[in-house]
């Protein structure tokens, strides 16, 4: 009945909250059913097991910026469907569906605001938009976010969530890896902090570029973080993998992260980091 709810939810005069699917939230980790309202009030963290659910840009901005106020940066215009790609569906149709489902123009959104009185630009990747995949739009938005931070002389904080490169943009999506790396370089040259918060799930080409280049590497608990997906590795080496393999905790243990921070503590942690790292005119 998923299609039915999808259609129903898009009809403006029927309240979205009224279907069973939206009233209850089922935790992806412990499978507990909790009231959606209670779940969202708990920052989309499961009140039963503490699992951090996936959230999009608006929810993230709402949780982090002062006074629930921020200025969203305009989405850049990029070439759409540069390869005229189609698999079983046309890429343009997939884009259209993702846009109507998320209300965003692509999988990455920037906003400028303050965190405990300190300026910051935050970029959030949206897994709900075609698996957060990285193509021309994500690459260009990231560059714009870094430049907005440079203009405002403030840190750039990026929340990653992505399956990797957007296959539908072929080699051009691969080229976003060096492109976004250049933006990280520009931040470094400007003496501004680049803080990465890895969220569930982040993998592939995203993991192998800007997601691992932060001055500070943070992750939310239990996030799935990988270069190569578990299934591919198991198929290649025909071995069973350790249970916590590619979790945030596993990455911390192997030296790839500075810290794991719960969502409820993120705002405080980021504020503290900015105070340590931001250019001195701004430092507390």
């Amino acid at each position, binding site marked *: 009945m998923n299609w039915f709810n999808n259609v129903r939810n898009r009809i403006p005069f029927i309240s979205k909250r009224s279907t069973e699917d939206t009233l209850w939230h089922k935790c992806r980790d412990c499978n507990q059913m909790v009231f959606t309202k209670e779940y969202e009030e708990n920052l989309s963290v499961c009140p039963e097991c503490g699992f951090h659910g996936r959230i999009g840009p608006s929810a993230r901005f709402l949780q982090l910026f002062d006074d629930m106020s921020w200025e969203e940066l305009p989405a850049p215009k*990029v*070439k759409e469907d*540069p*390869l005229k*790609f*189609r*698999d*079983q569906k046309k890429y343009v149709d997939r884009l259209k569906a993702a846009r109507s489902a998320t209300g965003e123009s692509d999988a990455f959104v920037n906003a400028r605001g303050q965190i405990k009185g300190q300026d910051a630009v935050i970029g959030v990747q949206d897994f709900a938009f075609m698996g957060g995949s990285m193509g*021309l739009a994500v*690459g260009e938005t990231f*560059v714009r976010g870094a430049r907005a931070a440079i203009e405002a002389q403030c840190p750039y904080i990026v929340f990653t969530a992505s399956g990797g*490169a957007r*296959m539908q*943009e*072929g*080699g*051009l*999506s*691969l*080229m*976003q*890896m*060096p*492109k976004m*790396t*250049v*933006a*990280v*370089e520009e931040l470094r040259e400007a003496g501004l902090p680049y803080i990465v918060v890895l969220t569930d799930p982040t993998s*592939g*080409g995203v*993991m*192998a*570029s*800007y*997601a*691992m*280049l932060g001055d500070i590497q943070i992750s939310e608990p239990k996030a799935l973080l*990988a*270069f*190569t997906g578990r299934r*591919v*590795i198991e198929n*290649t*080496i025909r*071995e069973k*993998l*350790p249970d916590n*393999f*590619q979790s945030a905790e596993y990455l911390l243990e*192997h*030296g*790839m992260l500075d810290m794991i921070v719960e969502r409820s503590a993120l705002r405080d942690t980021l504020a503290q980091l900015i105070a340590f790292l931001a250019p001195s005119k701004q430092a507390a």
Partner: protein
Amino acid sequence: MPVIPSLTRPTGRLNRATMQHYLDFEKPIADLQARVAELRTTADSGSLNIDGEVKRLEAKSEKMLRDTYERLTPWQKTQVARHPDRPHFKDYVAGFVEDFMPLAGDRGFSDDLAIIGGFGRIHGRRVLVMGHEKGDNTESRLRHNFGMAKPEGYRKAIRLMKLADRFGLPVVTLVDTPGAFPGIQAEERAQAEAIARSTETCLQLKVPIVAAIVGEGGSGGAIALSSANTVLMFEHAIYSVISPEGCASILWRTADKAADAAEAMRISAPELKKLGVIDRVVAEPVGGAHREPDAAIAALGKAISDELGKLAGVSGEKIRLKRRAKFLDMGK
């Protein structure tokens, strides 16, 4: 200069006529060439004068080869790019790098032979040359891990690039990898971070970096060495964000649709040139680099030397900024 067994060129390619691997789509050509060989044996025995027929069939088979290779589909190119007889890193080095002096190790963990590099001279100009080595028999393929580097391979690459940068040697990379190695140890030692830093290092260099996609340019494992000022690509090489099989199994839910995926992703050199992903296509001999490796190797050496020439004398800062601008504008 130390001699590393893996770097000495095999003594010719023995019995190429009989040992040649034919690809599936080359079957009609293989059949014709077998027929020619058969007629030749008959003619040698002196029983018949069939020179005319042999010549006619040879001409026909040559034409068929040319026609086939002019119209290779992206999936056929994938087969050619992966052809076991295609020249590999050590063949290019033996062919156009003088005084090659290999350097080893990442200084932290081990020496990953999936990526080999060292000092050398190309047409007299000193360079740091490195690239993926796939190996060409079971033993060497295992030793080089089929050209799939682990984090220590990329960390060796980073070390060598920084070394080249300090001493003003241009960097030349030859890319030929199915992708970075997917395994527990690779993940454990931060494969993603190693690739990200290697890409970053390419972008920081104040010396020119010229990359050539010579076989398979597989995703992150390739971009870590190919974020270059100039990217060359062999006519029948492929360069892609995911293997056609991988893409097909995700988007079509079956690897059987790899040919469709190869087509849709535009992984061939001419198409990537049009998209601005690469800068120059290097033509291969008729029938692919594996049929006339010496000619292919020489053509690549010349193209690389040309491109190094164009970048010589440009200031380090300009080299770096031009490279950055190129990737910032990618896809615009």
